[in-house]
């Protein structure tokens, strides 16, 4: 089944196009890595699929429905630094948020079944022990995993992740990537992940889309990650290096991370 279909999709802000003429199909269970430089329209495209932004022309379907009609099938994971951390919520309360809005308008007390499910979701992402800690006191990687657990609470069929690895150190990137791997393996969720740094995510990406306001390339990683394609967006210094059957992209936006944790 087709999870997301876009045909000649143009997304506008106040009449000005932010993303133009995008066409692609993502099948159920596949993971798409959405790559592009700053201002390329990655987040705009993600937010349009999530129904946060509705100013678009062309066709966009999510599980054969309009995006806003498919909301209950979508789990959206924002960048953790976009959240208001002054609000004193615990990790468990943040995760519970993923389910409470399925019922009612008043949520003075969290239902026991929601709390239990939230604890299980936290355990799934390896954070069972921090449930009572304040969200703002967690490390960057832990915050991102809490947000993943929150997204899983609604049992989504499509997970949209906005820069899940941004501003994380290499070990935190590895933590989050492991959880994404686990979600892919055990939950069979379709995922779209925007990223500046595609290298840590290449293992889980079935498809790669490169955009820069327009669609530059879309296909399997080995088809998209070619020198001439990368250079057309990131300039002449960008390149793709094959190392032991793996591809590494150097675009200037990011570095290759070695196992020792350093970058070069």
């Amino acid at each position, binding site marked *: 089944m087709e999870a997301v279909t876009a045909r000649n999709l143009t997304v506008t802000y106040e009449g000005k196009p932010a993303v133009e003429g995008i066409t692609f199909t993502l099948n159920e269970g596949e993971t798409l890595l959405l790559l592009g430089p700053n201002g390329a329209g990655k987040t705009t495209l993600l937010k349009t699929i999530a129904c946060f932004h509705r100013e678009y022309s062309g066709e966009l379907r999510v599980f054969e429905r309009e995006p806003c009609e498919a909301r209950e099938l979508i789990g959206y994971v924002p960048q953790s630094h976009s959240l208001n951390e002054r609000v*004193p919520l615990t990790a468990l309360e943040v995760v519970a948020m993923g389910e409470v809005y399925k019922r009612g308008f*008043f*949520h003075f007390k969290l239902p026991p079944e929601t709390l239990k499910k939230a604890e299980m979701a936290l355990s799934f992402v390896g954070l069972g022990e921090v449930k009572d800690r304040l969200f703002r006191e967690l490390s960057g990687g832990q915050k991102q995993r809490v947000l993943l657990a929150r997204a899983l609470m609604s049992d989504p069929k499509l997970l949209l992740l906005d820069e899940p690895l941004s501003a994380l150190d290499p070990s935190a990137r590895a933590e989050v990537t492991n959880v994404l791997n686990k979600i892919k393996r055990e939950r069979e969720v379709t995922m779209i992940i925007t990223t500046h740094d595609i290298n840590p995510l290449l293992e889980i990406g079935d498809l790669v889309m490169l955009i820069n306001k327009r669609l530059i390339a879309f296909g399997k990683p080995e088809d998209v990650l070619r020198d001439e394609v990368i250079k057309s967006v990131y300039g002449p210094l960008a390149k793709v290096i094959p190392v032991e059957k793996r591809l590494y992209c150097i675009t200037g936006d990011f570095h290759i991370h070695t196992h020792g944790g350093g970058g070069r």
Partner: protein
Amino acid sequence: MIPEYLIRAILASIMVSVLLGMLSPLINTKGLAFLTHAIFHSLLFGAVLGMILGLLFENMGLVMLVALIITVAIVLIIAQLEKVGFSPDSAVGIVASFVAGLTVLGFGVLYKVMATRPYFPLSQSIVSYLTGEIFLITLGDLSALVFGGAVLFFLMLFLYRDFLYLSFDPEGLESYGGNARAYLMVLYVLVGAIGALIVQTVGLITLQVVAVLPGAIALMVSSDVRKVLAVSLFLTLSVQLSSVVLAYFTDIPPSGLATIMLGVIYGVLLFRR
């Protein structure tokens, strides 16, 4: 023997403290200080309009009702402007400038109406709107404050977690099936309605300070929601009650004392940091 007016003042202080103690952390976490400022100024416009109508129809009870209606209407206009794409600050800025201008024009009309009618009860009302006059609160005022306050308190209590989620991540709330806009509207209306309900006891000049500082202080000294609420409630209650008692012995307006006390506590905490 405790004078009856002092008992009424203490009871009013308790209700005001409970409402502000609950509301204040929300104003801080959602970043509504600027909006609160605009809302509270719209109360003055509403009150002036209410005074004009009160004089014309010889019914001073209209003052609070008109102030409440105008404030809620202005809150809804701000929310509508945000919906059509204005940033919260721009929406507040646009509305606040109109409200300020209309208030001054309203005063001009009020003076003209006052020149044609006996206005003794009104001069007391104007003063109480500006500086707060808790000792002049009548049994009727107290009943309205307690009944209206109870309704607003329970509405705020039952939606408290939703307001926290709204402050934390409105997009997330929306994406998991909540209606962020509806919660925001209810929160705005609550701020306006609480302001309208307590303005005569607290005073417009000091209202914003007593609405913002308890929550700001509570968030500085605690990070757990329950403790933040407890600190904010304890702070508003102790400051309001002690200012009433002090005012009783010194004849200084209690709202001024409460504001100075809160300012000192906030300043000391900032200085110690």
